[in-house]
Protein backbone atom coordinates (compact mmCIF):
# COMPACT_ATOMS: atom_id res chain seq x y z
CA UNK A 1 0.00 0.00 0.00
CA UNK A 2 1.45 3.36 -0.94
CA UNK A 3 0.34 6.95 -0.80
CA UNK A 4 0.50 9.49 -3.53
CA UNK A 5 3.45 11.85 -3.27
CA UNK A 6 1.24 14.77 -2.35
CA UNK A 7 -0.28 12.96 0.60
CA UNK A 8 3.14 11.80 1.64
CA UNK A 9 4.37 15.35 1.68
CA UNK A 10 1.38 16.38 3.71
CA UNK A 11 1.92 13.80 6.40
CA UNK A 12 5.60 14.69 6.50
CA UNK A 13 4.67 18.28 7.39
CA UNK A 14 4.63 19.38 10.99
CA UNK A 15 1.86 20.92 13.07
CA UNK A 16 4.08 23.62 14.38
CA UNK A 17 7.65 24.64 13.65
CA UNK A 18 9.62 27.26 15.56
CA UNK A 19 13.29 28.14 15.16
CA UNK A 20 14.18 30.94 17.54
CA UNK A 21 16.85 33.44 16.40
CA UNK A 22 19.18 32.73 19.30
CA UNK A 23 19.82 29.36 17.72
CA UNK A 24 21.54 31.30 14.94
CA UNK A 25 23.52 33.25 17.52
CA UNK A 26 21.63 36.56 17.29
CA UNK A 27 21.48 38.67 20.45
CA UNK A 28 17.88 38.81 21.72
CA UNK A 29 16.29 42.09 22.84
CA UNK A 30 12.72 41.05 23.45
CA UNK A 31 11.12 37.69 24.04
CA UNK A 32 7.73 36.48 25.15
CA UNK A 33 7.42 33.39 27.28
CA UNK A 34 4.17 31.52 27.79
CA UNK A 35 2.14 34.54 26.70
CA UNK A 36 -1.64 34.30 26.81
CA UNK A 37 -4.04 37.14 26.00
CA UNK A 38 -7.69 37.12 26.98
CA UNK A 39 -10.53 39.44 26.00
CA UNK A 40 -12.86 38.84 28.90
CA UNK A 41 -13.17 35.06 29.01
CA UNK A 42 -12.25 34.62 25.35
CA UNK A 43 -8.67 33.60 24.74
CA UNK A 44 -7.13 35.50 21.82
CA UNK A 45 -3.49 34.41 22.04
CA UNK A 46 -2.60 30.88 23.11
CA UNK A 47 0.99 30.59 24.12
CA UNK A 48 2.89 33.07 22.00
CA UNK A 49 6.57 32.28 22.46
CA UNK A 50 8.79 34.37 20.24
CA UNK A 51 12.24 35.92 20.47
CA UNK A 52 13.20 39.07 18.62
CA UNK A 53 16.72 39.63 17.36
CA UNK A 54 18.50 42.91 17.92
CA UNK A 55 18.74 45.33 14.97
CA UNK A 56 16.70 43.07 12.76
CA UNK A 57 13.25 43.38 11.29
CA UNK A 58 10.82 40.68 12.32
CA UNK A 59 7.55 40.39 10.44
CA UNK A 60 4.36 39.01 11.93
CA UNK A 61 2.06 37.66 9.23
CA UNK A 62 -1.18 35.73 9.17
CA UNK A 63 -4.82 36.04 8.14
CA UNK A 64 -7.15 38.68 9.69
CA UNK A 65 -8.16 37.77 13.19
CA UNK A 66 -5.13 35.53 13.64
CA UNK A 67 -4.04 37.54 16.68
CA UNK A 68 -0.90 39.15 15.26
CA UNK A 69 -2.00 42.71 16.07
CA UNK A 70 -3.21 41.67 19.52
CA UNK A 71 0.17 40.07 20.11
CA UNK A 72 2.04 43.17 18.93
CA UNK A 73 -0.04 45.53 21.07
CA UNK A 74 0.61 43.35 24.10
CA UNK A 75 4.36 43.82 23.71
CA UNK A 76 4.30 47.41 25.00
CA UNK A 77 1.13 46.86 27.00
CA UNK A 78 -1.12 49.02 24.83
CA UNK A 79 -3.83 46.44 25.53
CA UNK A 80 -3.69 46.87 29.29
CA UNK A 81 -7.16 48.35 29.61
CA UNK A 82 -8.97 46.08 27.17
CA UNK A 83 -7.33 42.68 27.58
CA UNK A 84 -5.70 40.48 30.18
CA UNK A 85 -2.14 39.55 29.30
CA UNK A 86 -0.59 36.62 31.15
CA UNK A 87 2.96 35.32 30.89
CA UNK A 88 6.34 37.02 30.65
CA UNK A 89 7.54 39.69 28.26
CA UNK A 90 11.31 39.74 28.70
CA UNK A 91 12.92 42.98 27.61
CA UNK A 92 16.71 42.73 27.90
CA UNK A 93 16.33 40.36 30.82
CA UNK A 94 13.53 42.22 32.61
CA UNK A 95 9.94 41.01 32.66
CA UNK A 96 7.98 44.13 31.64
CA UNK A 97 4.64 42.42 32.17
CA UNK A 98 4.96 42.83 35.94
CA UNK A 99 2.40 45.10 37.59
CA UNK A 100 5.04 47.36 39.20
CA UNK A 101 6.73 48.20 35.90
CA UNK A 102 6.29 51.86 34.99
CA UNK A 103 4.49 51.45 31.68
CA UNK A 104 5.25 55.01 30.57
CA UNK A 105 9.01 54.58 30.86
CA UNK A 106 8.68 51.17 29.23
CA UNK A 107 6.67 52.54 26.30
CA UNK A 108 9.25 55.24 25.77
CA UNK A 109 11.70 52.42 25.10
CA UNK A 110 9.26 50.26 23.16
CA UNK A 111 7.56 52.68 20.77
CA UNK A 112 4.69 52.04 18.40
CA UNK A 113 3.42 53.24 15.01
CA UNK A 114 -0.15 52.49 13.99
CA UNK A 115 -2.09 51.37 10.97
CA UNK A 116 -3.64 54.74 10.23
CA UNK A 117 -1.27 57.72 10.40
CA UNK A 118 -2.26 59.68 13.51
CA UNK A 119 -0.35 62.98 13.56
CA UNK A 120 -1.47 65.28 16.37
CA UNK A 121 -3.37 68.49 15.61
CA UNK A 122 -0.17 70.49 16.08
CA UNK A 123 2.60 71.81 13.88
CA UNK A 124 5.05 69.37 12.33
CA UNK A 125 7.73 70.62 14.69
CA UNK A 126 5.56 70.28 17.78
CA UNK A 127 4.43 66.79 16.83
CA UNK A 128 8.00 65.69 17.36
CA UNK A 129 9.14 68.11 20.04
CA UNK A 130 6.21 67.99 22.40
CA UNK A 131 6.82 64.62 24.04
CA UNK A 132 10.46 65.68 24.55
CA UNK A 133 9.38 68.91 26.20
CA UNK A 134 7.17 66.95 28.58
CA UNK A 135 10.22 64.90 29.52
CA UNK A 136 12.25 67.97 30.36
CA UNK A 137 14.10 68.66 27.10
CA UNK A 138 13.52 72.39 26.73
CA UNK A 139 16.68 73.82 25.17
CA UNK A 140 15.76 75.12 21.74
CA UNK A 141 19.02 74.02 20.08
CA UNK A 142 18.69 70.52 21.49
CA UNK A 143 15.07 70.27 20.32
CA UNK A 144 15.95 71.60 16.87
CA UNK A 145 18.67 69.01 16.59
CA UNK A 146 16.45 66.09 17.61
CA UNK A 147 13.63 67.22 15.32
CA UNK A 148 16.03 67.38 12.39
CA UNK A 149 17.70 64.02 13.01
CA UNK A 150 14.36 62.30 13.60
CA UNK A 151 12.90 63.73 10.41
CA UNK A 152 16.06 62.80 8.50
CA UNK A 153 15.95 59.24 9.80
CA UNK A 154 12.31 59.03 8.77
CA UNK A 155 13.25 60.42 5.32
CA UNK A 156 10.92 63.38 5.67
CA UNK A 157 13.33 66.22 6.38
CA UNK A 158 13.90 67.34 2.80
CA UNK A 159 10.16 67.62 2.14
CA UNK A 160 9.13 69.52 5.25
CA UNK A 161 12.18 71.46 6.45
CA UNK A 162 10.66 74.76 5.31
CA UNK A 163 7.19 73.98 6.65
CA UNK A 164 7.94 72.94 10.21
CA UNK A 165 5.41 75.44 11.59
CA UNK A 166 2.56 74.18 9.44
CA UNK A 167 -0.15 71.89 10.73
CA UNK A 168 0.72 68.21 10.54
CA UNK A 169 -2.88 67.47 9.57
CA UNK A 170 -2.17 68.92 6.13
CA UNK A 171 0.43 66.23 5.27
CA UNK A 172 -0.31 63.47 2.76
CA UNK A 173 -0.87 59.92 4.06
CA UNK A 174 2.68 58.74 3.34
CA UNK A 175 4.25 61.87 4.80
CA UNK A 176 2.00 61.70 7.85
CA UNK A 177 3.03 58.10 8.50
CA UNK A 178 6.70 59.02 8.24
CA UNK A 179 6.07 61.90 10.62
CA UNK A 180 4.62 59.36 13.06
CA UNK A 181 7.80 57.31 12.71
CA UNK A 182 9.90 60.42 13.29
CA UNK A 183 7.77 61.22 16.34
CA UNK A 184 8.26 57.70 17.69
CA UNK A 185 12.05 57.70 17.22
CA UNK A 186 12.48 61.20 18.65
CA UNK A 187 12.07 59.83 22.18
CA UNK A 188 14.99 57.43 21.44
CA UNK A 189 13.29 54.07 21.78
CA UNK A 190 15.07 50.75 21.70
CA UNK A 191 12.38 48.81 19.90
CA UNK A 192 9.87 50.00 17.33
CA UNK A 193 6.55 48.18 16.93
CA UNK A 194 4.70 48.84 13.68
CA UNK A 195 1.08 47.73 13.24
CA UNK A 196 0.44 47.44 9.49
CA UNK A 197 2.04 50.84 8.92
CA UNK A 198 1.64 50.78 5.15
CA UNK A 199 -1.90 49.47 4.84
CA UNK A 200 -3.36 52.96 4.34
CA UNK A 201 -0.66 54.05 1.88
CA UNK A 202 -0.32 54.01 -1.90
CA UNK A 203 2.40 51.81 -3.53
CA UNK A 204 4.93 54.63 -3.93
CA UNK A 205 4.64 55.73 -0.31
CA UNK A 206 4.78 52.09 0.75
CA UNK A 207 8.07 51.47 -0.98
CA UNK A 208 9.53 54.70 0.45
CA UNK A 209 8.43 53.54 3.89
CA UNK A 210 10.09 50.17 3.38
CA UNK A 211 13.38 51.87 2.40
CA UNK A 212 13.13 53.96 5.54
CA UNK A 213 12.60 50.89 7.72
CA UNK A 214 15.59 49.13 6.19
CA UNK A 215 17.77 52.10 7.16
CA UNK A 216 16.23 52.39 10.61
CA UNK A 217 17.13 48.86 11.61
CA UNK A 218 20.75 49.95 12.13
CA UNK A 219 19.52 51.84 15.17
CA UNK A 220 16.41 49.99 16.28
CA UNK A 221 14.94 46.57 16.62
CA UNK A 222 11.81 46.53 14.50
CA UNK A 223 8.75 44.29 14.75
CA UNK A 224 6.17 44.80 12.04
CA UNK A 225 2.71 43.35 11.53
CA UNK A 226 1.82 43.19 7.87
CA UNK A 227 -0.87 41.81 5.61
CA UNK A 228 1.40 42.15 2.66
CA UNK A 229 3.53 39.07 2.19
CA UNK A 230 5.78 40.64 -0.42
CA UNK A 231 6.52 43.35 2.11
CA UNK A 232 7.49 40.80 4.74
CA UNK A 233 9.67 39.03 2.21
CA UNK A 234 11.35 42.27 1.10
CA UNK A 235 12.30 43.76 4.43
CA UNK A 236 12.38 41.22 7.24
CA UNK A 237 14.99 38.74 8.46
CA UNK A 238 12.56 36.75 10.54
CA UNK A 239 8.91 35.97 9.99
CA UNK A 240 6.35 34.55 12.36
CA UNK A 241 3.16 33.06 10.95
CA UNK A 242 0.08 33.44 13.16
CA UNK A 243 -3.13 31.50 12.77
CA UNK A 244 -6.13 31.41 15.11
CA UNK A 245 -4.21 32.89 18.01
CA UNK A 246 -1.20 30.58 17.73
CA UNK A 247 2.28 30.97 16.27
CA UNK A 248 2.36 28.08 13.83
CA UNK A 249 5.72 28.77 12.33
CA UNK A 250 8.67 31.00 13.12
CA UNK A 251 11.92 31.03 11.23
CA UNK A 252 14.11 33.15 8.99
CA UNK A 253 12.05 34.88 6.34
CA UNK A 254 13.72 32.97 3.52
CA UNK A 255 12.86 29.66 5.19
CA UNK A 256 9.23 30.67 5.68
CA UNK A 257 8.77 31.76 2.12
CA UNK A 258 10.83 29.12 0.31
CA UNK A 259 10.66 26.07 2.52
CA UNK A 260 7.77 26.25 5.00
CA UNK A 261 7.53 23.30 7.34
CA UNK A 262 3.86 23.65 8.25
CA UNK A 263 1.08 23.03 5.75
CA UNK A 264 -1.02 26.06 6.72
CA UNK A 265 1.99 28.35 6.37
CA UNK A 266 2.73 26.87 3.01
CA UNK A 267 -0.86 27.44 1.90
CA UNK A 268 -0.84 30.99 3.24
CA UNK A 269 2.44 32.16 1.70
CA UNK A 270 1.58 30.59 -1.63
CA UNK A 271 -1.80 32.28 -1.63
CA UNK A 272 -3.90 29.10 -1.41
CA UNK A 273 -5.33 29.94 1.93
CA UNK A 274 -8.88 29.21 2.97
Amino acid at each position, binding site marked *: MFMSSDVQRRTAMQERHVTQPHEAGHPIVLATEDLHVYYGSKEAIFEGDLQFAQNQITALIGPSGSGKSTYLRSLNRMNDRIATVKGRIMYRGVDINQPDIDVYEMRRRVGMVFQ*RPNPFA*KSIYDNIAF*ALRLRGVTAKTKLDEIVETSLRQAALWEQVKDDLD*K*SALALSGGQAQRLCIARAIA*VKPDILLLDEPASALDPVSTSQLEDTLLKLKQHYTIIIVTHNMQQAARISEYTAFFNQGRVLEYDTTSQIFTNPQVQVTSDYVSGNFG
Partner: protein
Amino acid sequence: MNAKRQNKVAIGTLYGIAGLVVLILLALLGYILVSGVPQLSWHFLTAPAKAFTKGGGVGIQLFNSFYLLILAMLISFPIALGSAIYLYEYAKDNWVTNTVRTAIEILSSLPSVVVGLFGFLFFVVKLNMGFSILSGAFALTFFNLPLLTRSIEDSLRTIDPQQREGGLALGLSRWETITRVILPAAVPSILTGFILSAGRVFGEAAALIYTAGQSAPALNFADWNPFNISSPLNPMRPAETLAVHIWKINSEGIMPDAKAISSGASAVLVIAILLFNLAARYLGKRLYKRLTSA
Protein backbone atom coordinates in the same frame (compact mmCIF):
# COMPACT_ATOMS: atom_id res chain seq x y z
CA MET B 1 -59.20 59.40 -1.30
CA ASN B 2 -56.44 57.79 -3.28
CA ALA B 3 -52.83 57.70 -2.21
CA LYS B 4 -51.67 60.41 -4.58
CA ARG B 5 -54.30 62.86 -3.51
CA GLN B 6 -53.69 62.05 0.12
CA ASN B 7 -49.99 62.64 -0.47
CA LYS B 8 -50.69 66.06 -1.94
CA VAL B 9 -52.95 67.09 0.92
CA ALA B 10 -50.51 65.86 3.55
CA ILE B 11 -47.49 67.57 2.02
CA GLY B 12 -49.50 70.74 1.62
CA THR B 13 -50.47 70.62 5.28
CA LEU B 14 -46.84 70.18 6.26
CA TYR B 15 -45.92 73.22 4.21
CA GLY B 16 -48.66 75.11 6.03
CA ILE B 17 -47.44 74.02 9.46
CA ALA B 18 -43.82 74.87 8.71
CA GLY B 19 -44.86 78.22 7.27
CA LEU B 20 -46.93 78.99 10.34
CA VAL B 21 -44.08 78.07 12.67
CA VAL B 22 -41.66 80.26 10.72
CA LEU B 23 -44.23 83.04 10.94
CA ILE B 24 -44.63 82.64 14.71
CA LEU B 25 -40.91 82.52 15.31
CA LEU B 26 -40.15 85.47 13.06
CA ALA B 27 -43.01 87.48 14.56
CA LEU B 28 -41.57 86.77 17.97
CA LEU B 29 -38.08 87.87 17.03
CA GLY B 30 -39.46 90.81 15.09
CA TYR B 31 -41.60 91.94 17.99
CA ILE B 32 -38.70 91.85 20.41
CA LEU B 33 -36.41 93.77 18.12
CA VAL B 34 -38.94 96.27 16.74
CA SER B 35 -40.32 97.21 20.14
CA GLY B 36 -36.97 97.01 21.89
CA VAL B 37 -34.33 98.47 19.63
CA PRO B 38 -35.80 102.02 19.60
CA GLN B 39 -35.37 102.06 23.40
CA LEU B 40 -31.66 101.43 23.16
CA SER B 41 -29.35 104.32 23.73
CA TRP B 42 -26.08 104.94 25.50
CA HIS B 43 -28.04 106.38 28.38
CA PHE B 44 -30.29 103.31 28.59
CA LEU B 45 -27.34 100.92 28.62
CA THR B 46 -25.35 102.79 31.25
CA ALA B 47 -27.69 104.72 33.56
CA PRO B 48 -28.96 103.18 36.81
CA ALA B 49 -32.61 102.15 37.03
CA LYS B 50 -35.26 104.44 38.51
CA ALA B 51 -37.98 102.71 40.48
CA PHE B 52 -40.75 105.29 40.51
CA THR B 53 -40.02 107.72 37.70
CA LYS B 54 -39.50 107.48 33.99
CA GLY B 55 -36.22 107.51 32.14
CA GLY B 56 -34.13 105.00 34.06
CA GLY B 57 -31.58 102.72 32.46
CA VAL B 58 -30.27 99.22 32.97
CA GLY B 59 -26.57 99.99 33.41
CA ILE B 60 -26.10 98.27 36.75
CA GLN B 61 -28.22 95.28 35.74
CA LEU B 62 -26.21 94.86 32.57
CA PHE B 63 -22.96 94.98 34.50
CA ASN B 64 -24.34 92.51 37.07
CA SER B 65 -25.38 90.10 34.32
CA PHE B 66 -21.89 90.04 32.88
CA TYR B 67 -20.19 89.84 36.24
CA LEU B 68 -22.38 86.92 37.32
CA LEU B 69 -21.86 85.24 33.97
CA ILE B 70 -18.09 85.48 34.27
CA LEU B 71 -18.05 84.21 37.85
CA ALA B 72 -20.43 81.36 37.09
CA MET B 73 -18.43 80.28 34.06
CA LEU B 74 -15.17 80.54 35.99
CA ILE B 75 -16.53 78.20 38.65
CA SER B 76 -18.39 75.80 36.40
CA PHE B 77 -15.87 75.35 33.58
CA PRO B 78 -13.11 73.58 35.54
CA ILE B 79 -15.63 71.32 37.26
CA ALA B 80 -17.39 70.47 34.01
CA LEU B 81 -14.07 69.91 32.25
CA GLY B 82 -12.79 67.59 34.98
CA SER B 83 -16.05 65.63 35.05
CA ALA B 84 -16.18 65.30 31.29
CA ILE B 85 -12.58 64.08 31.20
CA TYR B 86 -13.24 61.52 33.89
CA LEU B 87 -16.47 60.33 32.33
CA TYR B 88 -15.08 60.00 28.85
CA GLU B 89 -11.47 59.00 29.43
CA TYR B 90 -11.34 57.13 32.71
CA ALA B 91 -14.76 55.90 33.79
CA LYS B 92 -15.37 52.20 33.40
CA ASP B 93 -18.83 51.00 32.55
CA ASN B 94 -19.95 50.10 36.07
CA TRP B 95 -22.63 51.07 38.56
CA VAL B 96 -20.69 54.06 39.94
CA THR B 97 -20.40 55.61 36.50
CA ASN B 98 -24.04 54.87 35.72
CA THR B 99 -25.19 56.41 38.99
CA VAL B 100 -23.20 59.57 38.42
CA ARG B 101 -24.47 59.83 34.85
CA THR B 102 -28.03 59.51 36.13
CA ALA B 103 -27.34 62.19 38.72
CA ILE B 104 -26.09 64.55 36.01
CA GLU B 105 -29.18 63.86 33.92
CA ILE B 106 -31.40 64.58 36.92
CA LEU B 107 -29.60 67.87 37.54
CA SER B 108 -30.06 68.88 33.92
CA SER B 109 -33.79 68.25 34.06
CA LEU B 110 -34.42 69.98 37.39
CA PRO B 111 -36.50 73.15 37.02
CA SER B 112 -34.21 76.12 37.45
CA VAL B 113 -36.50 77.49 40.14
CA VAL B 114 -35.76 74.41 42.26
CA VAL B 115 -32.03 74.95 41.76
CA GLY B 116 -32.51 78.57 42.78
CA LEU B 117 -34.48 77.59 45.88
CA PHE B 118 -31.75 75.20 46.90
CA GLY B 119 -29.22 78.01 46.44
CA PHE B 120 -31.39 80.20 48.64
CA LEU B 121 -31.63 77.54 51.32
CA PHE B 122 -27.97 76.58 51.29
CA PHE B 123 -25.94 79.67 50.41
CA VAL B 124 -28.18 82.56 51.35
CA VAL B 125 -29.61 81.15 54.58
CA LYS B 126 -27.46 78.27 55.79
CA LEU B 127 -24.04 79.68 54.91
CA ASN B 128 -25.30 83.15 55.70
CA MET B 129 -24.02 84.60 52.45
CA GLY B 130 -27.16 86.67 51.98
CA PHE B 131 -28.52 87.73 48.60
CA SER B 132 -25.19 88.08 46.85
CA ILE B 133 -23.38 87.72 43.59
CA LEU B 134 -21.55 84.72 44.97
CA SER B 135 -24.76 82.91 45.97
CA GLY B 136 -26.11 83.64 42.50
CA ALA B 137 -22.94 82.46 40.81
CA PHE B 138 -23.15 79.13 42.64
CA ALA B 139 -26.79 78.67 41.69
CA LEU B 140 -25.95 79.42 38.06
CA THR B 141 -23.05 76.99 38.29
CA PHE B 142 -25.35 74.17 39.35
CA PHE B 143 -27.75 75.08 36.60
CA ASN B 144 -24.94 75.13 34.05
CA LEU B 145 -22.83 72.12 35.12
CA PRO B 146 -24.78 69.26 33.54
CA LEU B 147 -25.12 70.85 30.11
CA LEU B 148 -21.55 72.08 29.98
CA THR B 149 -20.27 68.67 31.09
CA ARG B 150 -22.26 66.93 28.40
CA SER B 151 -21.14 69.34 25.72
CA ILE B 152 -17.46 68.94 26.65
CA GLU B 153 -17.84 65.19 26.72
CA ASP B 154 -19.36 65.32 23.23
CA SER B 155 -16.42 67.43 22.10
CA LEU B 156 -13.95 64.87 23.44
CA ARG B 157 -15.86 62.16 21.63
CA THR B 158 -15.24 63.86 18.28
CA ILE B 159 -11.47 63.41 18.61
CA ASP B 160 -10.15 60.29 16.89
CA PRO B 161 -9.25 57.60 19.47
CA GLN B 162 -6.09 57.04 17.42
CA GLN B 163 -4.80 60.34 18.79
CA ARG B 164 -4.94 58.88 22.29
CA GLU B 165 -3.03 55.79 21.24
CA GLY B 166 -0.45 58.03 19.59
CA GLY B 167 0.17 59.80 22.88
CA LEU B 168 0.26 56.61 24.94
CA ALA B 169 2.71 54.98 22.52
CA LEU B 170 5.16 57.83 23.14
CA GLY B 171 5.24 56.94 26.81
CA LEU B 172 2.84 59.69 27.88
CA SER B 173 0.32 59.07 30.63
CA ARG B 174 -3.37 59.24 29.78
CA TRP B 175 -3.57 62.55 31.64
CA GLU B 176 -0.73 64.07 29.60
CA THR B 177 -2.28 62.73 26.42
CA ILE B 178 -5.63 64.26 27.33
CA THR B 179 -4.32 67.65 28.40
CA ARG B 180 -1.64 68.04 25.72
CA VAL B 181 -3.11 66.25 22.71
CA ILE B 182 -6.85 65.71 23.01
CA LEU B 183 -7.93 68.96 24.65
CA PRO B 184 -6.01 71.25 22.27
CA ALA B 185 -7.55 69.38 19.35
CA ALA B 186 -11.01 69.68 20.90
CA VAL B 187 -10.73 73.38 21.69
CA PRO B 188 -12.85 74.61 18.75
CA SER B 189 -15.79 72.44 19.65
CA ILE B 190 -15.40 72.95 23.42
CA LEU B 191 -15.38 76.70 22.83
CA THR B 192 -18.60 76.52 20.82
CA GLY B 193 -20.32 74.62 23.62
CA PHE B 194 -18.90 77.00 26.20
CA ILE B 195 -20.28 80.10 24.48
CA LEU B 196 -23.68 78.53 23.88
CA SER B 197 -23.97 77.61 27.55
CA ALA B 198 -22.86 81.13 28.46
CA GLY B 199 -25.85 82.37 26.48
CA ARG B 200 -28.18 80.24 28.58
CA VAL B 201 -26.61 81.42 31.81
CA PHE B 202 -26.83 85.04 30.68
CA GLY B 203 -30.60 84.89 30.29
CA GLU B 204 -31.41 82.79 33.37
CA ALA B 205 -33.60 84.46 35.96
CA ALA B 206 -35.52 81.89 38.01
CA ALA B 207 -32.35 80.54 39.64
CA LEU B 208 -31.32 84.06 40.60
CA ILE B 209 -34.30 85.81 42.15
CA TYR B 210 -33.69 84.17 45.54
CA THR B 211 -29.90 83.94 45.34
CA ALA B 212 -28.44 87.05 43.75
CA GLY B 213 -31.52 88.92 44.84
CA GLN B 214 -33.82 91.45 43.24
CA SER B 215 -32.17 94.70 44.13
CA ALA B 216 -29.39 96.61 42.44
CA PRO B 217 -27.78 99.01 44.90
CA ALA B 218 -25.93 101.92 43.41
CA LEU B 219 -22.39 101.16 42.36
CA ASN B 220 -19.36 103.37 42.34
CA PHE B 221 -17.65 102.55 39.07
CA ALA B 222 -14.51 104.32 40.22
CA ASP B 223 -13.96 101.90 43.08
CA TRP B 224 -12.57 98.55 41.99
CA ASN B 225 -11.62 97.24 45.40
CA PRO B 226 -13.74 94.10 45.76
CA PHE B 227 -13.93 94.54 49.54
CA ASN B 228 -15.80 97.84 49.40
CA ILE B 229 -19.56 97.62 49.58
CA SER B 230 -20.23 99.93 46.61
CA SER B 231 -17.51 98.44 44.43
CA PRO B 232 -18.85 96.75 41.30
CA LEU B 233 -16.52 93.83 42.00
CA ASN B 234 -17.75 93.15 45.53
CA PRO B 235 -19.06 89.56 45.30
CA MET B 236 -21.09 89.82 48.50
CA ARG B 237 -23.46 92.56 47.34
CA PRO B 238 -26.96 91.78 46.07
CA ALA B 239 -27.17 92.00 42.31
CA GLU B 240 -30.26 92.08 40.16
CA THR B 241 -29.48 90.99 36.60
CA LEU B 242 -31.09 92.12 33.38
CA ALA B 243 -33.33 89.07 33.15
CA VAL B 244 -34.44 89.38 36.77
CA HIS B 245 -35.05 93.09 36.20
CA ILE B 246 -37.51 92.35 33.39
CA TRP B 247 -39.40 89.95 35.60
CA LYS B 248 -39.41 92.21 38.60
CA ILE B 249 -40.59 95.47 37.04
CA ASN B 250 -43.37 93.58 35.29
CA SER B 251 -44.61 91.78 38.38
CA GLU B 252 -44.40 94.83 40.63
CA GLY B 253 -46.00 97.27 38.24
CA ILE B 254 -44.69 100.37 39.99
CA MET B 255 -42.31 101.69 37.37
CA PRO B 256 -44.20 104.01 35.03
CA ASP B 257 -42.21 103.09 31.93
CA ALA B 258 -41.86 99.40 32.82
CA LYS B 259 -43.01 98.32 29.41
CA ALA B 260 -40.51 100.44 27.50
CA ILE B 261 -37.69 99.42 29.81
CA SER B 262 -38.63 95.73 29.52
CA SER B 263 -38.76 95.98 25.73
CA GLY B 264 -35.32 97.52 25.66
CA ALA B 265 -33.92 95.00 28.14
CA SER B 266 -35.47 92.09 26.22
CA ALA B 267 -33.88 93.36 23.03
CA VAL B 268 -30.52 93.60 24.80
CA LEU B 269 -30.86 90.02 26.04
CA VAL B 270 -31.88 88.67 22.66
CA ILE B 271 -29.16 90.57 20.82
CA ALA B 272 -26.62 89.33 23.34
CA ILE B 273 -27.78 85.73 22.82
CA LEU B 274 -27.65 86.27 19.06
CA LEU B 275 -24.08 87.54 19.35
CA PHE B 276 -23.17 84.58 21.57
CA ASN B 277 -24.55 82.24 18.91
CA LEU B 278 -22.74 83.94 16.07
CA ALA B 279 -19.50 84.13 18.05
CA ALA B 280 -19.75 80.42 18.89
CA ARG B 281 -20.11 79.47 15.23
CA TYR B 282 -17.49 81.89 13.96
CA LEU B 283 -14.80 81.25 16.57
CA GLY B 284 -15.29 77.48 16.45
CA LYS B 285 -14.89 77.42 12.68
CA ARG B 286 -11.92 79.74 12.70
CA LEU B 287 -10.02 77.90 15.37
CA TYR B 288 -10.67 74.62 13.63
CA LYS B 289 -9.29 76.05 10.41
CA ARG B 290 -6.19 77.31 12.15
CA LEU B 291 -5.64 73.94 13.71
CA THR B 292 -5.81 72.05 10.43
CA SER B 293 -4.54 74.53 7.84
CA ALA B 294 -1.21 74.13 6.10
